[in-house]
């Protein structure tokens, strides 16, 4: 086993991550504006920005889903209980004692078990909740004449808002996590230049050095 600097985030992944970040921040700010929590924008501008950002994010996701499946990188998000306890124990106890993080990043496994579970939950619970309700909200004009449409709209808005609160909480934790372990900057850099320290098996190291020399330093 050797620790090397390896390109673990491809250009598309980084593009995906940062565009998504920008759009989600826009959606959170404008969304809470539409909800009436602040008046940084007029209602009209908040709705327009919110809807536009949602369309842009939808487009981005269509590409990223396509990319995840064609590159088989979706496997990074498969949850695993193995090592989960260690990670949980580290964040709630070990970290204060100066213990080592129990997880070693592998080339085939970029996320620790807690990360994988958190991202998976985000992808299969929160994001669908906000998308389904968001699209239903947006297409109200098409179903407004169904019976009890206003009650449904109210429910849709409720779930949409609740999901937004949860996503905001996720974003806060996500950003805070960058301060744990490495410095904030060191955590940020892989998502900017793509390279991070990864434990490589001799086979992986040999393969990368020979076939993808640009991806290993």
């Amino acid at each position, binding site marked *: 086993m050797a620790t090397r600097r390896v390109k673990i985030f491809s*250009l598309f992944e*980084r*593009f995906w*991550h*940062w*565009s998504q970040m*920008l*759009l989600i921040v*826009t959606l959170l700010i404008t969304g809470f504006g*539409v*909800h*009436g929590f602040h*008046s940084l924008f*007029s*209602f*009209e*501008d908040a*709705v*327009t*920005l919110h*809807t*536009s*950002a949602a*369309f*842009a994010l939808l487009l981005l996701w269509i590409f990223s889903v396509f990319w995840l499946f064609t590159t088989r990188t979706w496997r990074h998000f498969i949850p695993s209980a193995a090592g989960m306890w260690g*990670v949980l124990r*580290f*964040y709630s106890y070990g*970290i*204060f*004692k*100066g213990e*080592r*993080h129990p997880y*070693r990043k592998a080339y085939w496994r970029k996320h*620790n078990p807690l990360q994988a579970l958190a991202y998976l939950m985000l992808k299969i619970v929160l994001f669908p909740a906000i998308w389904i309700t968001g699209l239903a*909200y947006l297409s109200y*004009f098409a179903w*407004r004449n169904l019976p009890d449409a*206003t009650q449904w709209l*109210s429910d849709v*808005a*409720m779930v949409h*808002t*609740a999901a*937004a*609160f*949860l996503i905001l*909480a996720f974003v*806060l*934790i996500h950003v*805070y*996590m960058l*301060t*744990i*372990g*490495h*410095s904030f900057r060191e955590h940020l850099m892989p998502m*900017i230049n793509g390279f991070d*320290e990864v434990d490589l098996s001799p086979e992986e190291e040999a393969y990368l050095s020979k076939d993808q020399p640009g991806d290993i330093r």
Partner: protein
Amino acid sequence: MRASIGAVAGLLLIALFSASSSARDNWPTPPATAVPAPQISGPLQGGTADHTKFDQLRGPFSSGPEVTVACLGCHTEAGDHFMRNIHWTWSYTNEETGQQLGKRYLINNFCTNSRGNEGMCAQCHAGYGWKDESFDFTDETNIDCLVCHETTGTYYKTPNSDGHAACSVMFEGKPPIDLAAVARSVGLPQRANCGACHFNGGGGDNVKHGDLSTALKNPPRTLDVHMGVDGLNFACTACHVTNRHIWAGSRYQVISKDTEGMGKPGQRSDVATCESCHGLSPHPVNSLAAFKLNDHVQSIACQTCHIPEIARGGVATVVSWDWRTAGKTRDGEGYHEEGYIQGNGDHRYTYKSIKGDFTFDENFPPSYGWFDGQMLYTTIDTTFDPQAESIEINGFTGSREDPKSRIWPFKRMQTWQPYDKGNGTLVYTHLWGEDDAAYWGNYEMGKSIAKGMADFGLPYSGEFGFIQTISWWPITHMVAPKEQALSCGDCHIPTRSRLTSVEGVYIPGRDRNRWVDIIGTLLVAGTLGGILIHGLVRFFSPSHGSKGEHH
């Protein structure tokens, strides 16, 4: 670095979508024309007859009916047509409920009732000489053609009966009308013709409707985009299109949601709805907001956004009236007090012995509610609970679930007016007359009610009180230019929403689930608090500063 290209692209995308949303604020307004064009009437444009050349109209005429005979000499069917419309009959039967409506029978919360007071009230009847029940509704020579068609602006009518000396003095010494000159001036009705009555309903300028005042005789475009002399310069009949002297647009059966829109050429144009000219998707779809605005047409009447305020243009409207204070005299004489200076500088009476106290308002936001076009009238036959806090003279119905309903703006009129305490009914008051029971002369309400009821064989317990009455006036005139229309934020706002009182619909920005907000705020605050505590414990823990760990 290359990752930021994506970010920039995202921003551009958003900017592209949103650019058009701000463009609405400064729409160009068409330039004013130097010379005002003639008023645009209904379909009949450019007549083939010049009435100044008609021998029949040379006169001399000694009375209005003589002019009418001359008119009917050529317009042979006009009398028959005219006698079917409510300007003549003052009577309207609701087809659905069978209820007898119309000015001739209804009670309102201004001067309460025309019935029994025709000598005064029927000044605004499009006929001659209606002063009591003996008026002959079948005599077409009694039709007043001039009031609608003369264009000199000199024509007027005085009450059909003398009234009490205290009141009739108001009409003494008016100069006679040159009937022949007036007759030769006839043309399509101008705003001032319709306005002679409709601007002055309820006893004064803009008293009743709130959206119809003398400011509309020569309004700027900013007061009314359709009637503005520096804009389209529409006469009333441009929208209230006439077919055989029956006008489109009825306040008894309002089309609160037009589902037909514009007709094809040769089809439907006889409906005075906004949609009959502007269609069902009136906003040009050049932005997301415009798309959404067109969707709003389903639930929101055009008037709701495009008439942001009532009684614009400098003429105030009466919003409350208190008959309880009527009848005070000074040295045995009636008097009045001026207490309100309106936008155009004119003083308005805030107290009159014959009517009581009034409150005026202008440039104020309407009340809003779901409206299906149907008014529920409290008529002279309706009994109610005398203990009720207030009675709606014309309540209205409608809801989000009703496909005919939309949210409409209304002027709310509140009055304390006399009623029959014993029977729980409204009453006819006898206000105008030469007899000693006429309130406008003797100031005795009990006597006036007793006669008002007895004259029509109506039961009266002999005991009257005052009850609060509300009437609702759908607002549809004084359409502001589009740049003055309400913006999204006027309704979609947690507090002070225009639609605060409107129920049965979820309005984003106005409505929310309290628990989701509370729990969500607690969750986010808790997360921040947790982060803060976790961070602080890390900071002060012995291993603070250890580096080089993955997570």
